[in-house]
Structures are given as C-alpha cells and as structure tokens.
C-alpha cells in the first residue's frame, strides 16, 4: 500500500484563483502546479488564508460562482479511459471541517448517506440503505441507532464519522479532507485521523489532507506541500520537509506548531504502513 | 455615499422613488389644481373617462370630478398611511424598549399583551375601534396603529435585549443614570434601525387598511379617500366599472411604490453595512 501508484490521478498546472471582492482575496491561489498520484497520501499545510482550502475546493469543482479560475486541473485517468470529468461524490469524496454544518439538519443521517449511494451506484432506496448500514459499520458507528437519527442528536465525532461515510459511499478514487479534524477535541481527533488512515489504506484511495497541523500531516502523509499566501512554497517527501525544510516559512511553521508532545512523531518514518 | 449610488443603481428603487414623488406631487398640488370641493358636482353624472377635456377621468354617480377626487384622495392615503405608520412605530418602539429593558414580570406582561394584539385579527380590531370611536381621521389613524404596532415592538425588544448587556450601557449604570434615561436615551436610538427597516411594510399596510376601512364606509365622511371612491363605484359596477378600477390602480401603484423604495433602501443599507 505504501507503493503509491506511479500513475498520476490529478495533474494541476498553473492553477490561479481570484475572488472579485477584496475581503476574500487573501484566500486566492497563485500559479500552483502539482500532481496527485494514484493512492498517495498528500498533505497540504498552511496558515489560515494561505489558500489551502481554496485549493481543495478547486480540485473538487466546488469554488463559489464569484471565483475566477485559470490554469488547468486534468484527470489523466478519466480523459483517456472514460472521456469524462470526475464527479463529486462518485470519484471525489470531500470531508468538511465542521461536521455540524455539513449535514442537513432535518434529514435522517441514514438517508443522507443512502442518497449518495442511490445517486452514484444506481441503487433502489432499500439497497442504498443497506449500503449505508455497511458504511456506518466501517466508520465504527452503530447503524441501528444512527440511521434514523438526526444530526443534532449526534456528537461532533459521530457526525464527522457519518460525514466520512457519506463521502466514501460511492467508492471515490480521491478523498479530500479539508481540516476534517480541527473542529473536534483531541481524543476524538486522533480517532477520526486513524479512521481516515484505515479507510484510505483499505480502499486504496488517494488522500488529500488539508490541515494547519504539521504534526498531523507528518503522521498521515507521504508528501507534504506547504502553502503560504496563495503560493506553494515547498513540496517534498514528509521526512525531508520535516527535517530539512528549505523554505524559511516551513521552518517557522514547523517550529511554531510542534511542541514537545508531538516531537516524537516526527522521528517515525513517514509513509510506511503503521496500523494493524 | 455609496449607499445612495447603490440605491439609484437599482431600477426597482428608481421606479419606487418616481412613483412616490409623483404621489407626493399629487397630494401637494391637489389644493392648487382643484381648489374647489372635490365632493361638489362638476358635470353630468357617470361621464366616462377621456370624453371631456375638463373632466379627463370622467365623473362619478353624482357628477363629481374623478381626477379631482383622485388627487385629493392621494392626500388622505398618504396622510393616514404616514401618520398611522409613525404612530405604530412609536408605540412599538416604546413598548419593545420598555419590555426588553425592564425584563422580568413587566416584560412577560407586555409580551402577553403583544401576543393578544396579534391574536385578534388586526382589521377586526380596527373596525371595532372606528365603529366605537366614530369615523374620523384620528380614529382611523389610531385604529390602524393599534393593529400594526406589534411587529415593531417584537423587533425593538429583541434589539434591546442584545444591546442591554453592552459595555457602554453598563458604564451608564455605573455613573448613576436613571434607568428610564438609559432605556430611552442610550438604548432606544441604537435599537431603532432594524425597527425603521419595517417602515415600508407598515406604511404600505396602513394605506391598504385605510382603503379597506373607507371601502366599508368607516372612513372620514368629510374627506375623499380612494377606498371610499371604490365603494362608491361599486354601486354602479356593471355600468361604470372604471369608477372602481381607477382609484384601485392608484392604490396598487402607491403601495408598490412604497415597497419598491423600501426594498431599495434596505438593500442599499444592507450592502453598505456588509462592506464596512
């Protein structure tokens, strides 16, 4: 599994995004070029306003209408094999930061997961609910109590697991987690991170992990890209980024974010299979 | 002011302002253009519109000049609409501020009274009040204010509740300002803007209520009103429908003008607030 595919899943060339209003423009992107390989785990780190979330949204095709995008995002596997663009939900799973806001407050959890399966896997509602049950077990939630529950009846961690189940419902090739654990408290955060790690390994999905937490990135990713003010200032193997950062920004970022408690993590080899 | 230019940049807002200016011109020039009593006989009865130069909109059942009545009716509509709206905003702001600032039992009682006023159909209450007090301009204005103050009261209370805990109110308490002085000199002015945002809806509602009261014969009998004209025309609806239709069109334009201008102001100020 650590043998990341040689094939390129997404090829981003000279990607720039700008917003019309001044206030949002700090989250813009300037000339990003980057490949995400099949099955690899790539972390994007940066401060808030570095454009890392905009990057994630751009790849998923979720930029707001006011955003202007130039450059290209190509999916080599798609254009050759299927002659079509990847579809959100089916080919790209997206997990958002705030699990309370990313689930419809008045629709039962089971239905929100089942509707993804119904949409992309062409299942009937009963089949889709059966699929949702399996997915909930995979994210270690009890299907019997979670399927009929509404978001407000769940804890933050439970909601994020349910949102992950919905994101992987149709078996995407790429899972994007945009600050997916930063709204959770530390213990729950660790659980959700290892859940994501396990799911990615089991399904062979590529993972784009967007975070401001360099320790988390170091634990999860094979490669790390560092964003600053809309530009990618550094990209490399996790170990290289952590131990011998070339860019001053990465250095200050590392020193600012790594406390004594997370230091031991950095000593571990990145990218190897660790679970099990 | 970017607000003014934004207001003028919207076609709806311009249309609304033009209508309101025309209306104001009608109301102000009524006495100059038609100095004689609009209720006096001016020509043959039931003259259709566009037949006679001096009576361009024809005459009613009693031979009164419809155009003169229309101009004088604009006066009544505008006067009653503005006076009733001002009265209901004032009552609403007063009750809401008192309830929100006093809190406790006082708040509870005032809000139940507000509930009671919202439970009784406003138009029925206005009807009852005018029928008991006798049809006069003051009675009509009071009746409409009685049926329309609850909305402003609720909004004023909600505003006051949020302002009450702010620092400058606490410091006013510390320097020993009288509670009533704090409530009405420090809090009320800051609670007013959202209450005033309701004014277009209230003015429009007041104009429509006045028309309905006059239509039922409860307007001031010594004044020409559009509602009264419609009621007059109703008796000859089969032979001369224009007598009901003309003042009705004037009413529709007036209310529409108020709404459009109100929406324009709301949008212009909302955008300005959003930017700052």
């Amino acid at each position, binding site marked *: 599994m650590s043998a990341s595919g040689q094939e390129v899943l997404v090829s981003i060339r000279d990607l720039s995004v700008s917003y019309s209003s001044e206030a949002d423009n700090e989250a813009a992107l300037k000339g990003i070029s980057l490949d995400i390989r099949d099955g690899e785990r790539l972390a994007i780190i940066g401060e808030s306003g570095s454009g890392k979330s905009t990057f994630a949204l751009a790849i998923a095709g979720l930029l707001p209408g006011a955003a202007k995008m130039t450059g290209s995002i190509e999916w080599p596997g798609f254009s050759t094999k299927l002659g079509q663009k990847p579809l959100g939900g089916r080919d790209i799973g997206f997990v958002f930061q705030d699990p309370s806001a990313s689930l419809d407050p008045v629709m039962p959890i089971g239905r929100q997961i089942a509707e993804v399966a119904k*949409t992309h896997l062409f299942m009937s509602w009963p089949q889709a609910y059966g699929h949702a049950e399996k997915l909930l077990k995979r994210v270690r939630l009890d299907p019997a109590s979670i399927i009929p529950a509404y978001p407000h009846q769940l804890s933050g961690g439970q909601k994020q697991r349910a949102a992950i189940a919905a994101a992987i419902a149709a078996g995407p090739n790429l899972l994007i987690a945009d600050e997916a654990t930063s709204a959770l408290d530390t213990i729950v955060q660790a659980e959700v991170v290892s859940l994501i790690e396990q799911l990615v390994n089991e399904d062979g999905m590529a993972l784009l992990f967007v975070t401001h937490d360099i320790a988390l990135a170091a634990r999860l990713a094979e490669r790390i890209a560092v964003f600053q003010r809309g530009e990618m200032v550094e990209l490399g193997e996790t170990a290289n980024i952590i131990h011998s950062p070339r860019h001053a920004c990465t250095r200050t970022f590392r020193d600012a974010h790594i406390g004594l408690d997370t230091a031991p993590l950095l000593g571990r080899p990145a990218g190897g299979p660790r679970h099990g | 002011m970017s607000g003014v230019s934004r207001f003028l940049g919207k076609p*709806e807002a311009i249309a609304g302002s033009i209508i309101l200016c025309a209306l104001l011109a009608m109301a102000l020039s009524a006495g100059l253009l038609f100095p004689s009593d609009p209720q006096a006989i001016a020509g043959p009865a039931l003259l259709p519109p566009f037949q006679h130069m001096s009576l361009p909109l024809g005459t009613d059942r009693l031979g009164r000049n419809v155009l003169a009545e229309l101009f004088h009716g604009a006066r009544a509509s505008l006067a009653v609409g503005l006076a009733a709206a001002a009265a209901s905003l004032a009552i609403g702001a007063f009750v809401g501020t008192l309830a929100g600032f006093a809190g406790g039992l006082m708040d509870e009682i005032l809000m139940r009274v507000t509930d009671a006023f919202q439970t009784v159909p406003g138009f029925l209450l206005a*009807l009852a009040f005018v029928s*008991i007090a006798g049809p006069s301009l003051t009675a009509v204005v009071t009746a409409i204010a009685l049926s329309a103050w609850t909305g402003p009261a609720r909004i004023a209370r909600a505003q006051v509740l949020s302002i009450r805990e702010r620092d400058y109110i606490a410091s006013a308490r510390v320097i020993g300002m009288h509670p009533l002085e704090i409530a009405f000199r420090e809090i009320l002015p800051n609670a007013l803007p959202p209450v005033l945002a309701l004014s277009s809806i209230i003015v429009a509602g007041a104009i429509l209520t006045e028309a309905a009261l006059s239509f*039922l014969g409860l307007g001031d009998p010594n004044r020409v009103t559009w509602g009264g004209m419609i009621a007059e025309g109703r008796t000859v609806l089969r032979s001369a*429908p224009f007598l009901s239709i003309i003042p009705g069109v004037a009413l529709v334009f007036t*209310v529409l003008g108020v709404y459009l201008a109100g929406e324009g102001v709301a949008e212009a100020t909302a955008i300005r607030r959003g930017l700052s």
Partner: protein
Amino acid sequence: MTRASTLLRRRLVGSIFVLAIVIVGTFLLLEAAPGDAVDAYAASTGGDAGLIELLRHRWGLDQSALTRLASYIWTLAHLDLGQSIAFSRPIRDVIFERLPNTLLLMGSATALSFGLGSALGIVAGARPGSFRDRFLSIGSLALYAVPGFWLGLVLIVVFAVDLRWLPIGGVETIASTDTGFARAADIARHLLLPVTALGFIYLALYLRMMRAGMAEVWRMDFILAARARGITRRRIVFAHVARNALLPLITMLGLQSAQMLGGSVVIESVFSVPGLGRLAQEAVTARDTPLLMGIILTSAVLVIIINLAVDIAYAFLDPRVGASEGSP
C-alpha cells in the same frame, strides 16, 4: 409524542393568558361604546324606562366596573356571548351559523396561497438571480400591493359581469335543491372568486418567504456538502433547500391566520358571503357592539386553535423541536 405534548401544554398555558387579555380588551371596548346591554335589549325588544332600570339593576350594570368585568367573564365561561341587537338572537347562535362559511373560505384560500405560493417560491428560489426569479419576485411584489377587496371587484367585473362564467356573490344558489356532489360543485363555483381574491394576496407573501428562505439555505455549508457528494441539482433543490426553507413558512401559516380572518371581512362583504367577516360588517352597520365583540372573541379563539395546530404540525416536521428536553 411526549415532545409534542410538552410543547402543547406550554403553549396552552400561554394561550389562556392571551385569551384573558383579549377578554379584558373586549370588555373595555364594550364599556367605551355608547349604550350597554340593556339598551341593546330594549332596542331589540322594546321596553319602558322602569323596565330598563329594573333590568340594569338585575343584570348588575349599576355595579362597579370590576364587578361587571367579573360577571362578563362569568357569562363568557358559560359560552354565553349575550344577545345580538341586530338579530334579536343569542350572539353565539348567529356566529355559529356563519362560522362554517368563513372556515371554508379561509381554509381554501390558505391552501391556495400556501400551495401555489410555496411552489412558485421553489421555482424562483431554485436558481437565485435567474430571469424566472426576478420575474416572480417583482410580480409577487406587485401582487402584494393589490388590495384584496379591489382584486375581488376586478374579478367580479371580468368573470361575473363580462364573461358571466361565475356567480357574482353568495355562497350557493338560493333555493337550490341540489344535494351531495352537485351542491358541493355549486358552492365551489360560488367560492372560486372570493377564494382567489383572498388567497392571491397571501400567495405573494408565501412566495417571497419561500424564495428568501431558499436563498438563505443555498448559502449553508450542508448544501455545499451535498454538492460535494454529487447529489443531483433537482434533489438538492427539493429534498434539501426547499425542505429546509419550508419550515419557517409553516410557522407563518399560524401567524397569518389572524391576518386572513381580518382580510375575509372585506372579501366576504364584496362577495356577499354570509360568513363571520360579513357579520362583522353588519354588526358595525347596525352599531351592534356586543355582536362585534363576540366576533372578535371567536376569532381570537379560532386563531389560538389554529396556532396550536400549527405548533403540533411543526413539532412533527422539524426534528430539532424540543431537542433540549432529553433526546438520545
């Protein structure tokens, strides 16, 4: 069930307070009105000065205001609204005779305005800023500016006078022997214009609320999340955006019932529908204040009942209601 019943109990207590205030209010208006119940009785039955004095004493009208208020409440507690001057009959009987027509008119107008209004609101709100959206929102604003009674007159001129398709007024053909379905069809023909006149005004309100509500829901994160999951646009519009935006409209349904009862006064007068609203106008014309107060009290009770029903419906439609009272 417990969730809804706790809510209902709390609302019921509040409603009792509100009703008490309304009763005191109508009592004050009755006091302010020239003449009292004895004048009313004398006017309807005739009687000399001695009898009037005697009645005034017997009915306690020479007592203090507080005593009179107590006896007013006491009679109301027996569901006795007093005697109508204009009809020389118990007010309760007159009102109950007219109530069904008003309920039918209001119910149909509510169904029309809510159903069509929210449907058009979905059409407008499905694509905010589109041509359809702008057209519908300006059109609804124009509609909202139309006085209901005038719309009624215009409908009469067009459909009853010129085209002669529909009857000019009333609730059914007088002295008709129709029964069952034929009678229902006859009533429907009579009510079509008044229901349209009453319903169209509020249609604009629901349309605008639905549209504004949807615009707000579109900006929510969970809609972005649904888009990220690749849910079809049609399903996002109906199952997520419209579903969420519909909830405040249901609350509005209760608040709007009082307005609509007021609106039916004029509409019933225009179309000569023998309902509660027309009765109110008749009471005003006949200076029958006790009858008018009876109508106000009945309307208040009706509005309270409708609001309770709406609250119960809301509790079932919004899973978040009462969540703080101990769900899993």
